């Protein structure tokens, strides 16, 4: 308990205080505690892969292979992004002709027919958001790998945004599904989904998986933490000085 006595008592916490990324706090990894990802219970002295006592989820100080997994999923999503935008997502067949729509041509159709609001919605949800997610996740992974201290708070907020808006790129998939199910008037008008929408769905799923795989704590880590390493049963002998966060010795074997 004495560990915490020396917390920065000079801080008089203000209720509306803005987060301060340079605040010297103790992170759980250095203190040998793990907060369970599922139930939030804090455990001290847990070994890697040990099950949480409350929810039986495996406890990890960091997500396993987070960067590798995120990177792989991201690349896969980037690959699928190309056919998602180039192949038609929806094919409309009428008596006379067959019209193939890609995501962008759908946006253009709305734009030219005067539905600017819809054009904007579809453009943002189906084109900008996936692109944004790919770029944002790329930045996050890249900067985490280099353990940069550049704008950590912004990056943390970026991650939150990516997580929040991820699902909304599924919009076009649902639009196409509803239209496919609805417009099936034989011989007159017939809509069926194109390959592009399968690729697009894959992009959404992959980016969502990628953002779930990414461990946001890596943004704040200043040293590599091996989630598979054994944790010592004792708490660290020395209290960590607030000013020494940059180069503190690590886990004991």
């Amino acid at each position: 308990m004495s560990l915490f006595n020396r917390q920065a008592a000079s801080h008089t916490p203000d209720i509306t205080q803005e987060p301060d990324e340079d605040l010297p706090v103790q992170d759980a990894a250095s203190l040998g505690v793990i907060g369970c990802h599922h139930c939030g219970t804090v455990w001290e002295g847990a070994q890697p892969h040990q099950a949480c006592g409350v929810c039986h989820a495996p406890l990890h100080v960091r997500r396993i292979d987070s960067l590798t997994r995120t990177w792989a999923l991201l690349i896969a999503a980037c690959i699928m992004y190309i056919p998602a935008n180039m192949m038609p997502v929806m094919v409309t067949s009428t008596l006379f002709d067959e019209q193939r729509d890609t995501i962008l041509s759908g946006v253009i159709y709305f734009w030219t027919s005067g539905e600017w609001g819809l054009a904007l919605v579809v453009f943002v949800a189906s084109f900008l958001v996936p692109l944004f997610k790919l770029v944002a996740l790329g930045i996050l992974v890249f900067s985490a790998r280099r353990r940069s201290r550049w704008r950590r708070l912004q990056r943390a907020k970026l991650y939150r945004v990516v997580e929040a808006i991820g699902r909304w790129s599924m919009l076009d998939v649902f639009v196409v599904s509803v239209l496919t199910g609805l417009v099936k008037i034989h011989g007159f008008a017939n809509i069926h989904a194109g390959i592009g929408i399968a690729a697009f769905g894959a992009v959404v799923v992959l980016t969502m998986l990628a953002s779930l795989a990414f461990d946001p704590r890596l943004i704040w880590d200043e040293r590599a933490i091996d989630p598979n390493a054994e944790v010592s049963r004792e708490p660290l002998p020395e209290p960590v000085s607030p000013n020494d966060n940059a180069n503190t010795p690590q886990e004991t074997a």
Partner: protein
Amino acid sequence: MQKRTDLIVCEECDAVYQRMALGEREIARCLRCGAELERDTGRRLQHLLPLTIGALILFVIANTFPIVTIELQGLSSQTTLIGAVVALTRDGMSEVALLVLATTLLFPLIQLGVLLYLLLPGARDRRPPGFVLLLRLMQAARPWGMIEVFMLGVLVALIKLSNMAEVIPGPALWSFGGLTVLLTVVVSFNPRYLWHLWEQQQAEQYGDKGTGA
């Protein structure tokens, strides 16, 4: 390992804090990154059960009745959610059909069903069987329920169709609208508090003892 109920760890930046008792409707935030650490659930837990039941009823309605009917030159066509999935499968896009089915039917249903099962009275004094597995399942399904996106997608599709045909909303459309609202409220409830709900009651009943490693 030892349970430390006096501590709380920020999920996003791993900072460690003292766990405080929260006043009514108070939220504890991390000082460094601003992430939410804990919030006072207050009466929300009590609201959860009726909202879940309401959502389930609306869910059933939304899937049994047609969402919308279109009329073109005297011909009409209508579909339900499942009808759209079947149409996608018939067209050969079975992966997309599976995706749509999962995100609009399966995962929301898992969430609502598990919540209902866990919250129904009679399971008050001890954890219902399968609690751990079910709650884990529900937490896994949580990010994948996308009914509100589906709602917006239906609206966009309707506006697109209203250019070429006459669009008549069906009962399921309103159900989906209501379901979106209810689901948003239900889902915003972080299930981790459910873990502690039973913990509290267990602690109250059997005395406080940390579970040994």
